[in-house]
Structures are given as C-alpha cells and as structure tokens.
C-alpha cells in the first residue's frame, strides 16, 4: 500500500502542481474581490478533493489498472489506499486553505477563531469528504469517459433531489428553512461541529463498503 501511496503522490507532484497554483491564484482573487475569508478554504479544499478522486482516472489511463493489481497490492489495499490518499489530500488542502484564510482574515481584521468560524471551516471539509466519498465508488464503477459524465449527472441529481424535497415540503406547508434553523439553534455550535464530523464519517464508511464491493467483483 505504501507503494500505491507513493505512486499517487508522484502523480500529484506531476499533475497536481498546476492545479494547486490555479486554485491558489483564484482563491487570492476571491479574497481580494471581497469574498468571505472562509471561501478560499472551501474553494481550495473542494478543488483538491476533486483531484483526489480523479487519480483513479490516471490509474485507468491506457489500462494501467490491471498492471497495478499484479503488483504486491491486493484489491483491498487499492481501495484502502484511495481512501487514505484522499483523506490526506483533503486534510492537507484544508490546512493550506485555513492558513491562507487566517492570513487574509488577520490582514482584514475579521473576527476569527470563534466556534462558529471553526464550524464553518469544518463544514467545508465535511462537504469535501462527502464529495470524495460519493465520487470514489462512482469512479471505480464507471471507467474513463463514463466517469467524466457521471460527475455532472450526480451534481444534477443531487440538485433535483434537494429542489424536489424543498418543493414537496413547501406544498405540504412545511417551512424547511425555518425548521433547519430551529434544529441548528437547538443543537448549538458544538452539536453542529459534531454533526459535521459524524455525517461524513458515516458516508465514508458506506462509500468504502461500496468501493470494496465494486472492485472485488471487477473483471479486467
């Protein structure tokens, strides 16, 4: 598994450098243009989480996948490695984004390091973790071109589901926004942080089980 991790970090070194530079430049632009200091944290974290899931595409390039599985790494090792690699990438990007956000926040004299601010920062990581958790099994299931089509489809499907849900609630006379705010107020900042950690953790476990099942049955 160590070998697979090294391989992915080599790919990051080769392919991810320009991506990170672009992310940083855009983040600087967003900050200068007066966006919230937390936005760059979310932006960088999400861009990197997208990249983490696309390393599977690099493994699929010219059929490399089958060769990788002839190396001393089992299919389970491969799945584990992808999750560990993605976690390291998201965490690393989040820390860089945080450092970046804090510097700008201090320069601007924004109020930071409050519980709410932390909750906001963690929420970006939670979203990134959920995103990677959804993408990894999909990337494993749908190879190459199909994989590229799946991403917009998933986003569209999620949008339709949320919109549909809100609409349905509206029709049923429930004010979802108010209900959500009520719930959040009730559980408080600490509760929200707990939820932001627990939800992605559960999603990640389900995602791992799906990925393992997909790869275990995959024929090359």
């Amino acid at each position, binding site marked *: 598994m160590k*070998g697979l991790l090294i*391989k992915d970090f080599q*790919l990051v070194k*080769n392919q991810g450098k320009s991506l990170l530079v672009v992310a940083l430049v855009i983040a600087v632009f967003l900050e200068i243009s007066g966006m919230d200091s937390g936005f760059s944290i979310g932006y960088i974290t999400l861009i990197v989480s997208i990249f983490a899931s696309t390393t599977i595409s690099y493994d699929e*390039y*010219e059929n490399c996948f*089958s060769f990788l599985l*002839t190396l*001393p790494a089992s299919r389970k090792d491969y799945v584990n490695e992808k999750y560990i690699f993605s976690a390291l990438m998201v965490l690393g990007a989040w820390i860089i984004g945080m450092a970046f956000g804090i510097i700008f926040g201090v320069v601007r004299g924004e109020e930071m390091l409050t519980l709410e601010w932390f909750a906001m920062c963690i929420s970006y990581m939670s979203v990134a973790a959920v995103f990677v958790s959804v993408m990894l099994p999909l990337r494993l299931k749908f190879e190459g071109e199909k994989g590229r089509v799946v991403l917009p489809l998933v986003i569209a499907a999620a949008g339709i589901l949320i919109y549909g849900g809100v609409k349905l609630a509206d029709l049923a006379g429930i004010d979802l926004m108010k209900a959500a705010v009520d719930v959040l107020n009730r559980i408080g900042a600490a509760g929200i942080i707990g939820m932001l950690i627990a939800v992605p953790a559960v999603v990640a476990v389900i995602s791992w089980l799906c990925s393992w099942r997909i790869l275990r049955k995959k024929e*090359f």
Partner: protein
Amino acid sequence: MLKIEHLKKTYGDFTLDCTMRVEPGCITGLVGENGAGKSTTFKAILGLISADGGTTALFGRTPDQFTKEDRQKMGVVLADSGFSGYLSVRDVLPVLKAMYPGFDRTRFENLCRRFDIPMEKKIKEFSTGMKAKLKVIAAVTHGAEILILDEPTSGLDVMARRDVLDILREYMEEDETRSILISSHISTDLENLCDDIYMIHDGKIILHEDTDVLMGQYGLIKVDEEQFAKLDRSYIIRVRRESYGYDCLTDQKQYYRENYPGVVVENGMLDEIIAMMIGGERL
C-alpha cells in the same frame, strides 16, 4: 510452479478450456493467434478475471489466496498495461522499492542505461519499444521466481525484440530454479527461447511439446497426389490440400526422410506447425 487444470472462461461465443503447467527452471511458451485465449489465460492466472471453472495454482495457491509475498515473487508484463503514462521512470523507482523488498535499484538503472530508457521523460512519451523494455526491466529486477509475460515483444522491431529476449536470458542464467511463462504470436521469439511450447487455438490447447522435439522431429512433408497415396500415414498429424498435392505435418520426419528418399521433408518451423495444426485436417 504453475499448474492450470481445465481453466474455463466464457465470453459470448468464445470458451477457454486450458490445461497447462510451468515447471521450475523452465521457460514455457504459449503461442496462438490473436484472440486464441492467451491473454484470458494470463489474466485468470493473475486473478484479474474470475474463472468460470477449473483451477489455476501458482506457488500452490489460487489467485484469491495470493499473499503479498507471493506477488513479490512474480514479475508480470501485460501486453496492454503498465505504469501510468503520467509518471517518469524516476517516479517509478520509489514505488518499486516500496513494493518489492528485493528490488535491485542499481541493476534497474544499469539496464535502463543499457537499453536507452530515459529516466526523466514521461512514460506516455516513450516509444512502443521503450515501454516494452521498461516493463520487462521492472519485472526482472526484484528477484522474482517466476515471470509471467503476456506478449512482451508485441509491436517491437527486430532490435527491440532481441533486447527483450536478452534480458530474459540473463534473468534465467542468474538462477536456474526460476521459471518463465511467456506468450507471443511471433513464434520465432519462442522457438529460440522456450524449453516447451503450448499451442492454443480457439480457447483450447491443441499441442504441447518440448521445443527440441518440435524443432528436431516435426517436419513438413510436401507430396503430390501419387506420393500421398503411397505415404505411410502412421506418423502424419495433419494434412492440408495444396495446389501441388498435399502438405503433411509429421512428428517423425526422420522416418519419412529415410523411407521416402524422393519426397521433400522440410524442417518444422513453429509458424508452419501452427498453421498446419490450425488449418490442417486430421487423417
């Protein structure tokens, strides 16, 4: 070392049913046309596909029982797969070092230098020959006990093929207990390298013979109608109709040379033997 018993796999109309062995210290060749079942057999041995029936056992274990140590004892080359094209050889080095405790970095680098493999260039920019040589170099430099090579010379020019075969010969000379299973549709590669050869056609093994026997005893008898009528058919394996009469494949060419002095008996080249086994008719 490797034992395959009635390995079965079905894809639509194609059914593989393969039985073969690779003994310690032997280079065993698997030869057949494209689509004959060579790659399917290799994939099943390595556990890349699941078998529909039969068994494959390498080091006495089925693919789903392979341990990390088992995989470290294998050197694998797949025809259409290798390291990601987005990596350079320099990037691959630490990966191999982490994967294989027996990885010999100096030898790897020496072989790359000897065969003009660039260290810094991305693999996707390599020529077909460079890619093929890199795959073989990676397979032979970690002290593997068996090499499993699916079409390692496919698409290579004469010089590159010779280079690849040289690397394989050196690998065998280092330790006489090592084995190689190699497939190719270029039979001259196998004629000069293998101890024994399996011929696969339409998913079935149609011939297994020691290379010495194939080269020394197999022959092609060319006869007209009249000669054919008088020919002893006890040692004729296949017959094919030609414009001048018949081509007959025999595994006793000496017998015909001695008893039929007027008949042309050519030495059996593997290509001819394959063509006869596939295109010829049994008597």
